[in-house]
């Protein structure tokens, strides 16, 4: 039994997790940095503790400080949210060592997953299609030339332990060895500094690919069920902006194939908890394994809307040792859901826009149950410059895609935000784009369709 959970994160996801804990009768402990001390979501928890200065390294990434609070508060489990330390095996180990439950996969499993090459190797051993490239770190730039010769360009150089859009270098044409060496060296340096590993692997770029990911739950008895797919092809700087489920391109046969890949891989890894496997779908309809996200994802509400399953509740139950109360055939999908992320950024340039929220009015979600808003933004509140620019997630549900888009647009248009800039206009420009409406999207959609310059017009 879990009675008290410490949430090692900040912002909307803390408030989201507290809601489920309240429903389950579980007490909550929140940690916050000096920059978040006045945020009202902090007061939603039963207990709250300051863990340091605003800089993430001194607070939300400060394992020692968080573990001290864990011991002091006597919380019996830790929910890490997403980002920060959510996939950090060292943190998970420290939590377990202090006698608490880690709400997520076993630290040893997390440690394996930290290496993308480990995942690529395991996936290919299990006969999952993996993007062409290397399945282990390369030794010299000679390997890049070899791969280019066999599969062509463009290629991506990626850090084995990279993440969050960091540590990716695209190669559009073959460079001379001096330039290539410089690129390789600089990427290795970034890796050593940011991820304590300079290992680099090579992957072929799948052009006009669609990003399709599968949400799964796995219990300690190794039962794995899939909660459908999410399509997240609308991205900028390798970060998602719009996510939806189901995807318009995934046929029932393809879905079953993705579920089978996912179950095979997760079962073999002995993964427990909730997680996501990301795949790419090329224009011919072939799928490639990309990576595993060993955490709750930002876009999980999309799946919650169409399956009516509370993913956070499932995470907590699995961590407590409960068996999944349902099997694959009990999971049903109803209607269509779309999430749109509002960032505190200039809608034309996507440059950051921190500051005080002078005025804020949110769309109604009490009468309108087809709209969900996950946000802790408040009038008079501060959007600090030290963290992710995510301002709000707006999620809509409709009986079909068209109605979900309409509900989402109406929701976005009724936002009033003053004091900071937000990407609402850019989000609306995408939702109004004929190609988006037709479902004709891919991961380079935003850069090709110039939705940003259209945001000026709308």
């Amino acid at each position: 039994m879990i009675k008290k959970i410490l949430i090692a994160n900040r912002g909307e996801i803390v408030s989201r997790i507290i809601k489920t804990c309240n429903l389950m009768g579980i007490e909550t402990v929140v940690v916050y940095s000096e920059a978040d001390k006045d945020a009202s979501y902090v007061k939603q928890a039963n207990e709250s503790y300051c863990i340091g200065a605003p800089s993430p390294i001194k607070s939300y990434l400060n394992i020692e400080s968080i573990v001290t609070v864990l011991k002091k508060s006597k919380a019996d489990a830790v929910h890490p949210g997403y980002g920060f330390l959510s996939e950090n095996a060292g943190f998970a180990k420290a939590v377990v060592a202090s006698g608490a439950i880690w709400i997520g996969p076993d630290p040893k499993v997390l440690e394996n997953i930290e290496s993308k090459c480990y995942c690529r190797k395991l996936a290919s051993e299990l006969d999952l299609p993996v993007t062409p490239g290397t399945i282990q770190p390369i030794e010299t730039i000679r390997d890049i030339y070899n791969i280019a010769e066999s599969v062509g360009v463009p290629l991506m150089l990626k850090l084995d332990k990279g993440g969050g859009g960091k540590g990716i270098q695209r190669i559009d044409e073959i460079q001379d060895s001096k330039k290539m060496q410089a690129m390789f060296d600089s990427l290795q340096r970034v890796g050593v500094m940011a991820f304590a590993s300079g290992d680099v692997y090579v992957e072929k770029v799948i052009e006009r690919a669609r990003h399709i990911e599968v949400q799964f739950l796995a219990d300690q008895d190794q039962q794995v069920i899939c909660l459908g797919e999410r399509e997240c092809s609308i991205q900028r700087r390798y970060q998602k902006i719009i996510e939806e489920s189901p995807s318009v391109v995934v046929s029932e046969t393809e879905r079953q194939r993705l579920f089978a890949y996912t179950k095979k891989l997760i079962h073999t890894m002995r993964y427990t908890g909730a997680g996501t496997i990301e795949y790419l779908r090329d224009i011919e309809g072939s799928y490639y394994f990309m990576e595993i996200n060993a955490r709750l994802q930002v876009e999980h509400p999309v799946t919650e809307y169409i399956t009516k399953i509370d993913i956070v509740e499932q995470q907590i139950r699995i961590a407590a040792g409960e068996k999944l109360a349902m099997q694959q055939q009990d999971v049903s999908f109803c209607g269509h859901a779309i999430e749109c992320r509002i960032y505190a950024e200039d809608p034309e340039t996507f440059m950051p826009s921190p500051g005080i929220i002078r005025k804020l009015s949110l769309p109604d979600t009490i009468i309108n149950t087809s709209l969900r808003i996950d946000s802790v933004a408040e009038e008079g509140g501060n959007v600090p410059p030290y963290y992710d620019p995510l301002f709000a997630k707006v999620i809509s549900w409709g009986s079909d895609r068209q109605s979900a888009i309409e509900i989402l647009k109406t929701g976005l248009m009724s936002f009033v935000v003053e004091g900071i800039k937000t990407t609402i206009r850019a989000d609306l420009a995408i939702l109004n784009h004929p190609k988006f409406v037709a479902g004709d999207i891919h991961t380079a959609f935003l850069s090709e369709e110039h939705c940003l310059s259209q945001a000026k017009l709308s």
Partner: protein
Amino acid sequence: MEYTLKAPMPGLVARVVVVEGESVTEGQELAVINCMKIEISCPTGKRGTVKKILVGEWDEMDVDTPMILLEV
């Protein structure tokens, strides 16, 4: 004469790319700040010599926080 490089935006010091005593040209990048996870380059408006570095990695800054002092 002295010239002070100030933070163009609030955020964190991602890195300082020059050392004290180094001579720099106008427009050269002296530091990079991280605002909401986006890295923003901070070039100098004047050429000169780096006299004093006033900030350290991951320091928090407001707009116009002095970062680097140049002798120009």
